[in-house]
Every structure is written in C-alpha cells, then in structure tokens.
C-alpha cells in the first residue's frame, strides 16, 4: 500500500509504548535472571535437575492439550446446539449467560466452588450420590475445573464460526441427497476446521497461563509450571529461579500463539464472509432431533454443574458462616459496602480508565499490523503479545523491578495498574480488529482510496465504523480483565490502590469465605452489567457474530 504521512508517527508511538512497557521490564528481568556479574546460567542450573520442575513441564503441556481437547469438544457441542438446533431465542440467551459465568468470575472462585460441589463432602458427590472417596485434587480435578472455566472461549469462538458457515451450503448438500452425518462430515466440519484449531489453541493457551486453578486443585501430586514459578518466588524466595521457570514456559506459550496466528491468517483468509453479497436465508436442518436431544443432555449437565457451583458461592455470601451457621444474613455484603468499598471504587476506576486507553491502543495496533506495511511489523505484533503469553506472576515481578526506581518510579500508583492491564489484556481487541479487518474485503478501502481519500480519511470514515465492534469488544474484555485479574497485580497493588480480587484472595486465605463470596458476586454482577451494555451496543452497531463481547476473552 502507499506510504502515508499518518502511519509513521503512529508506528513510532505504538512501538515506543510497547518497548517501554513490555520489552523494557522483560529485559530488566532477563538481566536479573541471567546476569550475575557476567552472563550466567546458574539460575537455571539445578532447576532442570529437579524432578518437580521436569514433572511440571510435562504436566503443563499435558494439561494444556487435554483442556484444549475437552474444551473444544464441549465448546463445539454448545455451539452446535446454539446455532444449528433452532432453539428459541430466549434459551440461546440463557445459555450464553450461564456459559459466560466461569469465564468472568474472579480467579479461585471456580476452583473453590468445585471443591464444594465435588469434594469429599461435596454437595453433588457426597450429599447427592453418597460418594466418600472422591479425590478432586490432582490432574482430574484441575482438568475438570479448567475445562469448565475455559470451554466458553471455544464455545464463543466456534459459535461465531458456525454462524458464518452459510446454511445454504449445507442445503445444497442436502438437495444433492446427502444424509445428515455426511453433510456434517464433508461440509460443516471442513468449513469449521480453522475455527476448531483456533479454539483448541486459545483454550490451550489459557490453560498454559492459568496459575490459580492448579494452585488450589493441583496439590503436590500435579505440579505445573506457572504454579511452580510462583512457588519458587514466593515459597523458596528464589526470584531468579522463578523467573527462569517462566522463561521456560514462554517457549510452549509462544508456540501455541504462533500456531493460532497461522491458522487464523492462512486458513481463515480463504473464508472471506463479509463480501457485500448476501445469500438467501434458509432454515437450518443439519441436526436430527436425536442429535439435538443428545447435545441438549450433555450441555444441560454442564450447565447444571456450573449453576450448582455458583449457587454455592451465592449461598456462602448470604449465610452467616457456610456450614457453621446457615442463617441468612447480609453481613458479608455489609462488609463489602463499608470496609470493602474503597477496593470496589479503586477497581472500578482503574477498569474504567483502562477501557478507552487500552481499546484505542488495541485498535490502532490491530490496524497497523493487519493493513499496513512497515519494517518490524511482525516484531511489533510479537512484542505486543509477550505480556499476555507470560504468566502474570512474572509480569508483575518484572514491572516491580523495572518501575520502582526514579525516573520511572511508577509503583504504588494507579498508573502502573492501568499500564499493566492495557499491555497485558489488549490482545483481545487487537485480535478482534484483525479478525474484523480480515473479513472486510480490502477493495472497500481501495474504493475509498481511488475516490481520492487520504489514508487517515479512509481510516476515519471507512475502517473505523467497520471496526467499532472490535473496539467495543476490546474495551469490554479489558473491563472484565481489570475486574477479575490477580496474578500480576498482586505485586502491584499498593498502600493507596487496592483491588477487589486481592480482597477475594485475602478472604479465601483468611477464612472469610462469606466476604470473598460476596465480593465475587459483586464482581460477577458488575461484569454482567458491562457485558449486557456492550451486547446492546453491539446489536445497535449490527455487529453480527461479534455481538458476543465475550467472544474474544480467550484471545
């Protein structure tokens, strides 16, 4: 494309920001880890000789693969049910609302709820089925919890993909005499393959980075890397060793991201779906009633499990002390709105500031990497997602090390929290922008250009209206993340700025289960509100499949 006077300063600005807030802290941490009066590998030495770390590496990969498979299968089942089963509108909405629940809840909540439901004295395992020897800790418990938490990513991704598969194509196959299974196998499935691969990788990546779930459910029998890194730093007081472990984790994490990119770019590129041509609407008939029933049973069970978990959390928030004194009480909410109010206000303020800053950053970055050419474009894209790929613990420590001393003494301020979120969680918005742009034929922009419009005019008048849904999605994701993230920010909260998630963690570790639950309910409520507002706005923008703000949460 043509060179343009507006692009260069934008590139410089974005590059500068990424260099300062992604590369610089990571560089400082690399230096701390591998420089001891000279280049040194003594932080790594011994780490790989340790059986727990070797086991952790294997376990992390295994878990990511299993969660990826289970999550994708479950997500596909839900997506089929939602898109292809001709469900009434309200049930589709209800499905979305429940499915979103684990994805938007604060960390630890899902894992704790699962113990209440399926632990040795769990509501379902013991009180309903009378099982006494259930072991929820280890691979299976972690797998179950992470699958429940992350399958919505696959669901939302695949739902969008399935919705974009023109039902007319299936119709043609039917009229050629193919049976349902054959149509599914030879038409629907091949058309969704890139989406399935994408969903698998997104879910795997989320599992690779998750440290909260294994922290609670993994136990000593199932160590994984992000948790080991956290333990190395906070348990053995070995920051260099912990950092080294994180850099080890960076390898598979980046491989997954590279794979994910490859699929969305290479394979997805051949399915341009927004062309201006419109197919005739047709009634979907690719699922037999038996298949719909089967899907409904599977999905119904999952939905029931999720609901039980969250009802337990809700119950814990409205009784005096779950299990000890089950009388109803609003005392925990009272605490949230008195002593906890500052944390709520701080969190909301930070989340609200993050939205425009991060949304804008995401959209500009997404536009630059997918519609312009400049030297270092790939490198910029890669650098911008580093903070997302790395476990939060390490990002938090890196920020602490890099931004504690003048002239960049940012620790202790709200600024550092905002920056941390913006550069860690803008990826969703960037991806959304790229995805939307990939679906928009460049000829639309070319038409504007050939009519004589300058590049910035084209961007403002043509591109921006088209990517408004992406901006909105990016901002919504940022809001959700800012309300629920903890791993990085536990090191960045300060004497002046506190966060709700940190209060939840405190509640869980300090026996204040009721308070933790009340805070969790409040966060869930606020996030639902935000998502509802965003969806409404999306609908007004006619955003189609992007109407799900949650679509990009995983990416």
């Amino acid at each position, binding site marked *: 494309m043509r060179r343009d006077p*507006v692009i260069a*300063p*934008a590139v410089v*600005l974005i590059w500068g920001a990424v260099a300062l807030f992604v590369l610089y802290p990571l560089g400082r941490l690399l230096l701390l880890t591998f420089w001891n009066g000279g280049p040194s590998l003594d932080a790594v030495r011994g780490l790989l000789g340790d*059986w*727990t770390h070797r086991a952790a590496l294997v376990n992390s990969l295994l878990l990511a693969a299993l969660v990826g498979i289970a999550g994708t299968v479950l997500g596909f089942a839900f997506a089929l049910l939602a898109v292809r089963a001709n469900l009434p509108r309200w049930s589709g909405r209800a499905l979305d609302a429940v499915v979103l629940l684990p994805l938007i809840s604060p960390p630890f909540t899902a894992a704790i709820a699962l*113990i*209440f439901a399926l*632990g*040795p004295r769990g509501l379902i395992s013991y009180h309903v089925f009378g099982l006494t*020897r259930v*072991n929820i*800790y280890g691979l299976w418990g972690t797998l179950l919890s992470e699958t429940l938490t992350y399958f919505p990513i696959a669901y939302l991704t695949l739902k969008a993909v399935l919705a974009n598969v023109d039902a007319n194509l299936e119709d043609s196959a039917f009229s050629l005499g193919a049976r349902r299974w054959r149509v599914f196998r030879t038409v629907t499935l091949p058309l969704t393959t890139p989406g399935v691969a994408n969903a698998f990788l997104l879910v795997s990546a989320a599992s690779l980075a998750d440290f909260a779930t294994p*922290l*609670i459910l993994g*136990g*000593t*029998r199932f160590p994984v890397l992000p948790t080991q890194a956290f333990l190395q730093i*906070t*348990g*053995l*007081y070995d*920051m260099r060793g912990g950092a080294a472990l994180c850099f080890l984790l960076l390898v598979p994490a980046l491989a997954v991201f590279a794979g994910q990119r490859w699929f969305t770019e290479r394979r997805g590129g051949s399915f341009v779906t927004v062309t201006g041509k419109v197919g005739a609407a047709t009634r979907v008939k690719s699922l037999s009633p038996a298949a719909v029933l089967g899907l409904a049973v599977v999905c119904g069970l999952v939905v029931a499990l999720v609901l039980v978990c969250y009802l337990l959390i809700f119950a814990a928030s409205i009784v*005096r*002390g779950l*299990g*000890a*004194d089950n009388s109803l009480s609003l005392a925990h909410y009272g605490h949230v709105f008195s002593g906890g109010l500052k944390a709520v206000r701080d969190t909301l303020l930070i989340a609200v*500031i993050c939205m*425009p*800053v991060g949304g*804008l*950053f995401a959209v*500009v970055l997404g536009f630059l990497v997918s519609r312009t050419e400049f030297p270092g474009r790939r490198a910029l894209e890669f650098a911008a997602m580093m903070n997302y790929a790395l476990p939060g613990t390490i990002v938090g*420590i890196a920020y*602490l090390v890099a931004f*504690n*001393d*003048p002239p960049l*003494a*940012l*620790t*202790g*301020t*709200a*600024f550092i929290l*905002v920056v941390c979120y913006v550069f860690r969680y803008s990826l969703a918005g960037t991806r959304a922008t790229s995805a939307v742009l990939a679906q928009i034929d460049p000829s639309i922009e070319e038409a504007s250009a050939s009519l004589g419009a300058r*590049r*910035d005019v084209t*961007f403002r008048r043509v591109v921006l209206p088209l990517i408004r849904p992406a901006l909105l999605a990016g901002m919504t994701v940022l809001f959700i993340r800012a309300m629920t993230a903890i791993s990085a920010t536990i*090191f960045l*909260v*300060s*004497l*002046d700025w*506190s966060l709700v998630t940190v209060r939840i963690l405190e509640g869980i*570790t*300090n*026996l*204040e289960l009721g308070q933790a639950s009340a805070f969790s309910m409040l966060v869930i409520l606020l996030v639902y509100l935000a998502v509802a507002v965003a969806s409404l706005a999306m609908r007004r923008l006619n955003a189609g499949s992007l109407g799900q703000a949650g679509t990009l949460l995983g990416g």
Partner: protein
Amino acid sequence: MGNWLVTACVSLLLVAGLAGAAPAQTLNVYTAWPESLSQPIFRAYTAKTGVPINFIRLSTGELVARATAEKNNPRADVIWGAPGDGFAAAKEAGIIEPYRPPTWDRIPAELKDREAYFTAVAKNTLVFMSNAKLLKEKALKPPTSWNDLLDPAYKGQIQTADARTSGTALTRILSIYYAFGKDEDKAFDYQKKLHQNVQVYTKSGGGCTIPAALGQALVCIAHMPDAMEAKKKGYDMVVTFPKEGVAAVIEAVALVKGAKNRDLATKFIDWTFSKDMQDLLDKNQVYMLPALPGATIEPGVQSLMKEARLLPVDLDWVGKNRKRLVERWVNEVIKE
C-alpha cells in the same frame, strides 16, 4: 487518526496525573497477618499517636519477593508480623536492617535474631484441628500424638500446608524434627508415612481450615490462630496438641533498610515491644503468646497452652537449614 492518538496520549497523561505518592508522615507497613488481627493493633497505634498507618497484607513469600524487588527504593518502612523464616530470607536478601527497641534485652534469646535484624512480636504454635462431626462419625478420638495421624482411618483425611509456600509447613517440619529428638532421618521417615494419609498440601498455611471446618477433610494441621478463628466463626472443631510437642515459632518485626520514614518506623517498633502493645495481643484475641515477658495472657489461652508442649527452636540452625529441609521434603516426602 492523528486525533485519536492525541486523545490516547492525553488520557495516558491524565492517568499519570492521578498517580500520587502517599502523604508524608504516614507509616507504611507490610504485614502477613490477616487484617482481622493486624488492623485493630494498627488502629490502636494511630489512636494513641495520631500517626496513620498504611498497610498491605501479603503472604510471607509475596511480601519478601515484593520488598526485594523494591530494594533500591523501598516502599514499606516496617515489615510487621510474618513468620521467622521469611525474615531469615529477608535478612539474606539485604532488605532489613538491625534495630534494637529499648525492651530488646528483655526478649528471650530464642525469640530474636542474634544481630537484631528481626525480633519476635509473638510466639506461635502448631495445632491439630479436627472436624468434630467427622470424628464422631468415624468413632475416632481427636489425635494427641504425631503417631495417631498414621492410623489408616485418617487416609485421605489430612490437609496441611506445602513446605514450598508456607511458613506453617516449616513449623510442621521443625515440630516433627524436634519431637523426634532432632533425629532428622527418623523425622523424614515419619513424614513419608504421614504423606500416605495426606489428602492435599495447601498453598497457604491456613488453607486447610475451611476444608476441615466444612468436612472436606478430617484433620488440618495449622497454626493456633487459624483454629481459633474457625471456632470463633462457630465451626465445631476440636483443637489438640501432639504430646511429643510442637515447635514454637516466631512472628517477627523488622525495620526496612533505607526506610523513608525511619523515625516513625522505629517509634512504632518501640511501641510494638512495649507492655501496652503486648497486652493488646491478648485483649484482641490474637491467640499467640506475647514475646515480652510479663505481658498479660488470658486464663483461657493459658490453660490451652498448658496442654501444648512447646519445643524451643534454634533460629540460627533454622536459618542455615531451612532451604535444605524444604528441598529434602520435596525430594523425599512428596516424590512418588
């Protein structure tokens, strides 16, 4: 597009403007004690002196990691209330400096660092807390010996802390070491057997309290304040001690090296070791034993403590061997 970028920069600057340092004359404290225990004490100090205290509650490991990263520009003035092993690590990392409050000489030697880098504010002990309902269901007596826990009836029913994350776990390892007459091999043999009955090792020291309170596990081995908190909340828990004894570990206080408000910090530490403050531990039901001899101890706590056989801990030895003990635990006890 240029306009958009300008907007972005302006909003970034606006955010930067919101950032402000804490007002002067405020004391900044990092603590590992739960808010319910620490805040009343900090409030009492503010009420008495008018000096506001800003505090963050972090787990011991997070606290040390954070203070270490902030070494060149410390944000906290005092580290107040965290287990002794964290302070051993903090001393090694060079983030605290020696300070002797006026009453330092009266604190028993086993409750303070020889070079005064840190001093115990209180003595903490380990307890067995058992779920009363489950005990009855299985017709078990509450455990009163380390060996009781090896009974197959407890298989998959014990929760306790992971040695890599929790000071409580170190207390447990030390307790077993001292209870078995400082015979390290015997102590580790015992722990391997105990491991067979352990359901899960939790990441935080008090992490097993809720599961035990709710019956997900029968026994939780944790610190005294966790157990008393659970009882206070109304959970039916039985608190017992092993007759062979438990290690008495310290909850300490230290001055941060290069503290910005050094004067305020030392005054606060002086007050920490005054009888005024030491009496508060009892009055606020912290369920730890005050470090200063002569401080009040409630009769209830006293009688409870009579059952406990507290074994003195050699802080120097612990400082030198902590890492090795944890590594041995990882490589021998939990390896399968």
